């Protein structure tokens, strides 16, 4: 049963890695889902398949797409599991989410778009600004994620010091 008052730091610390992974998986899945919804379906910028794709690109795209589906659902079940154990740590989870989402976007923007040439962000335009914004925002997300994780760890240490020692 989740406690009504106070924060269960012991449980948070015990499940720190699980909080982080729940975030990474959900972030990755969420960004992949947004990519599919916004850029493929709504804007129609991305192409389903682009003739310059190399064979490895199809494999990489297929694996990542499948993995992201599992990551979204799995990440959410991990959140449910953490909640049920009174161990959900929002700051750590958000840190993981930003790192996971940013990492996927960076991989998508560099390896998948450029090296494997699955598709470009948009067609019949000067692609450079699009690539800069895409990968730049990915790097910002990753950096913000790491800052959040660091801050969460500091909170945890601080909480340990404040608590009076009952010896």
């Amino acid at each position, binding site marked *: *049963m989740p406690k009504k008052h106070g924060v*269960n*730091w*012991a*449980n948070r610390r*015990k499940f720190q890695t699980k909080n982080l992974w729940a975030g990474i998986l959900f972030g990755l899945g969420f960004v992949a889902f947004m990519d599919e919804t916004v850029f493929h379906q709504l804007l129609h910028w991305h192409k*389903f*398949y682009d*003739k310059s*794709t190399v064979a490895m690109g*199809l*494999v990489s*795209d*297929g*694996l990542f*797409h*499948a*993995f992201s*589906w*599992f990551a979204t*659902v*799995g990440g959410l*079940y991990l959140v*449910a*599991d953490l909640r*049920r*154990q*009174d161990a959900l740590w929002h700051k750590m989870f958000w840190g993981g989410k930003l790192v996971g989402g940013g990492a996927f976007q960076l991989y998508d923007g560099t390896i998948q778009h450029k090296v494997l040439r699955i598709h470009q962000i948009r067609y019949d335009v000067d692609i450079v600004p699009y690539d800069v914004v895409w990968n730049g925002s990915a790097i910002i997300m990753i950096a913000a994620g790491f800052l959040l994780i660091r801050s969460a760890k500091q909170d945890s240490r601080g909480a340990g010091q404040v608590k009076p*020692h*009952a010896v």
Partner: protein
Amino acid sequence: MLYDSFFAVTDWLFGVSALLAIGLYLVGVYLSDRQERLRKWPRLRIVSWVSGAVLSASALVGPLAVLSHGNFIWHMAGHLLVGMLGPLLLALGAPMTLLLRTLPVRQARRVSRLLRSRLAGFYIHPVTAAVLNIGGLWLLYTTGLFAAMHHHLWLHILVHVHVFAAGYLFTVSMLYIDPVSRRFSYGYRTVVFILALAGHGILSKFLYAYSPHGVPVEEARAGAMLMYYGGDAVDLVIIVLLFRSWYLSSGSRRSAISPGVPVREMT
């Protein structure tokens, strides 16, 4: 005229099979519900089984069967029904559990022995089921099999029976709704499932790029996209069900270890 006799055969074959499946299941439910010591058979399972049988058959009988013969988009819609959605709904009907409940003890033992046999174990293995399911599709669409299927009745029947059986096998190798002889861990099933879904997605994009023999490019592309997104949608349901049972089983395991004792803060 040749076509008429072609469809007459498949209509009869698949239509009667589906009706038989529904009829036998309902008889089973009736017999099971008559036994006082057993709890009533869940309504949802009946709904699931009947709709699974109807949807599977609807792709092979009547208008959709005729449409899918000449059009790749309809063919793909049919494929999603026969190979994915239909089998999933049928599996959720837990037919094997119903059978074991309904049969007299001696026969039920024989069936459960059969389920525990090495051959059944081979087919229900997640890797075998995934290879039969996804491998079969690669074979169908990247070789001359797809074109040949439209000219030979026996091949047409064989391919559709395979697609259905492999789809069902794959579903029950991922979700253990009915009893199985060997349970693979959730992690193991997840890894195999990711690879299988990737194989399905890659094949869809491959078909988008290289249309099967005799299929017009535009039709192949629309069909391939339907395969890709439709496959995602049905598999999402299986993923949610798989992870749900993982979540529930880890919860009950934990409470079995320390019933009702909350994790205390260390001092």
